[in-house]
């Protein structure tokens, strides 16, 4: 797990910097990004903060002090992230519920070990809610990001193949797409998870399988259009190989579609995970799971509200930022073909 998590961080950072260089080199994209920054400065700032939190929770290693008085022998042998080390969750625990900034337990009136230090209170097991909420950022970004890594290559491969080569290939791909698209996505999602088994990877794969279709369909239609354009025809007439044409002329013109769909898919996948969490097949540590667990606390008397509110607010903040970004991206990159998303 240590190398997987850290490896993912390296890959993500490398991809991000590659994308940054590519944007910088292309005047059209550079200009679009500048306009984006001017339109949604706060959204971009919020998203970078969220990303940073997720990053802090991804860089991890084994060993080091587990904090005084924790007495947790196991923790010393587990990989702990920067965020874990900062909060030292093993020693930052109470016995049960406590309200935000409280000095004693919510139901027991017994004094807390860390009075006034739990900004968002603690949950039933006495864990700090603020810490758990922050950890949710990594899970949410994982759901959206990891799935996109599955979705985008598949969708591009199928969409381009169908749109560019047409004929039999197109018939086959179109049949596959229309078959998958004719199953209501939530049902397909549930079926997939039931069949694949529960767990983070399985949920991500299931989300990937259900959501590649919409992008593939867009890519297919756009490739179809691009293929007929004069400059592609000209390239073909000059004897440029099919592979070269796809690489040089088709792919770059699909980039904006991919970027916008990625952002829109991201929020729909995080939303779908909350439903899965409610159905008991979600991802561990997600806000959906927190909400699902906290929903019954909401009907207690007196109400334990901070658990639910913290997870809901974090979920809303992330989705709002992503949706606002998607909205602006759509305006900046392509106001026309994407209205259906």
């Amino acid at each position, binding site marked *: 797990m240590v190398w997987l998590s850290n490896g993912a961080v390296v890959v993500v950072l490398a991809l991000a910097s590659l994308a940054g260089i590519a944007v910088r080199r292309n005047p059209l994209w550079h200009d679009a990004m500048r306009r984006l920054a001017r339109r949604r400065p706060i959204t971009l700032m919020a998203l970078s903060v969220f990303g940073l939190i997720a990053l802090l929770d991804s860089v991890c290693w084994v060993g080091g002090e587990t904090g005084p008085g924790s007495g947790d022998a196991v923790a010393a042998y587990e990989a702990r992230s920067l965020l874990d080390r900062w909060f030292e969750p093993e020693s930052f625990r109470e016995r049960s519920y406590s309200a935000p900034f409280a000095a004693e337990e919510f139901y027991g009136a017994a004094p807390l070990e860390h009075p006034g230090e739990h900004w968002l209170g603690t949950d039933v097991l006495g864990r700090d809610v603020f810490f758990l909420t922050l950890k949710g950022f990594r899970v949410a970004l994982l759901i959206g990001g990891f799935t996109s890594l599955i979705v985008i290559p598949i969708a591009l491969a199928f969409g381009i193949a169908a749109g560019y080569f047409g004929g039999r290939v197109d018939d086959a791909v179109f049949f596959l797409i229309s*078959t998958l698209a004719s*199953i*209501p996505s*939530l049902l397909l999602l549930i079926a997939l998870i*039931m069949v694949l088994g529960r767990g983070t990877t399985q949920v991500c794969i299931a989300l990937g399988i259900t959501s590649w279709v919409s992008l593939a369909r867009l890519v297919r239609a756009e490739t179809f259009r691009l293929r007929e354009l004069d400059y592609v025809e000209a390239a073909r007439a000059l004897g440029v190989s099919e592979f070269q044409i796809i690489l040089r002329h088709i792919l770059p013109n699909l980039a904006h579609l991919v970027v916008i769909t990625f952002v829109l898919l991201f929020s729909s996948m995080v939303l779908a995970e909350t439903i899965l*969490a409610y*159905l008991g097949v979600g991802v561990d540590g997600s806000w959906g799971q927190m909400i699902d667990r906290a929903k019954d606390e909401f009907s207690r008397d007196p109400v334990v509200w901070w658990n*639910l509110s913290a997870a809901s607010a974090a979920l809303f903040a992330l989705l709002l930022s992503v949706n606002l970004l998607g909205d602006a991206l759509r305006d900046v990159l392509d106001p026309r073909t994407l*209205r259906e998303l």
Partner: protein
Amino acid sequence: MWAYVVRRLLYGFITVLGVLFLLFLLFFTVANPEDIARKAVGEKASPEVYAQWLENHGYDRPLFVNPEYPTSSLARYTDTLLASHYHDMLTFDFGRSDADDTPISARLREGALPSLLLTFPVFLGGLLFSIALSLLIALFRDTYIDRMAVVLCVAAMSIATLLYIIFGQFLIGKVLRWFPISGFSGDPAVVWRFLALPVMIGILASLGPDIRFYRTIFLEEAHRDYVRTARAKGCGEGSLMANHILRNAMLPILTRVVTTIPFLFVGSLLSENFFGIPGLGALTVEAINGNDFSTLRTMVYIGALLFIGAQILTDVTYTIADPRVRLG
């Protein structure tokens, strides 16, 4: 045009066959009958119980090819799980639940009405509200009202359905005490009191994305040349919206509306469970929790059937509604 309808129906049927194959792959090969049986009878059950369960549920045959028959015999291919899966599903013989052995068709019939009672008002109310509101917003285009409305829609889209339900139930059911928090009744005189809350929440949850979508459509139409022509002949904003813009926007709206029809069936997955309405959504959730693969399989199949039917309906209505398609 009839040729088109027939062709469309045929393609729909082929898609159904595709869906069935996909379901077979998922429920018979990825999760094979042995796993299902083991989950149903428990890990420690004797081999006899286990074999008996497989036989009772019709899982005791090979997947694709039955080696008991000679190669020339057709039964080598028909007496298999694949063939019986196709046969059962296409003849709507859904068999019994893997979890509690009740006939699935009976449970579907029971659940259909409560589900419809919940989802139909949500569907209709959501449609009316969102079209009316988005027309209103479209009238205020290029003003702060419009921009505010868009931001509100995006915000509404960022709230998970789960949260709409939790907070809606809390606010309306618990704090304001307008309606009972949950429950259901077969008595038509009482049942609306139970349905009011989930319907209200359902409509509210659908407004954000729908208004945003319809607004985009209306604005797109409002910028077209024929609108300018209508203005130039002295058309007022109201009749412009009703006679010209709405009529042209009907086509994309139609597409959107029909694609939401299958969600009448499953969209209430969460709220049925929350509000204790014994519909198909609740049945699905039960199937998930009880590892009831045969029920789940049936639900997915029916959802897909409805969806394919709805798509065919859209395409056909489209040809009627759009003179460019109808008259070629």
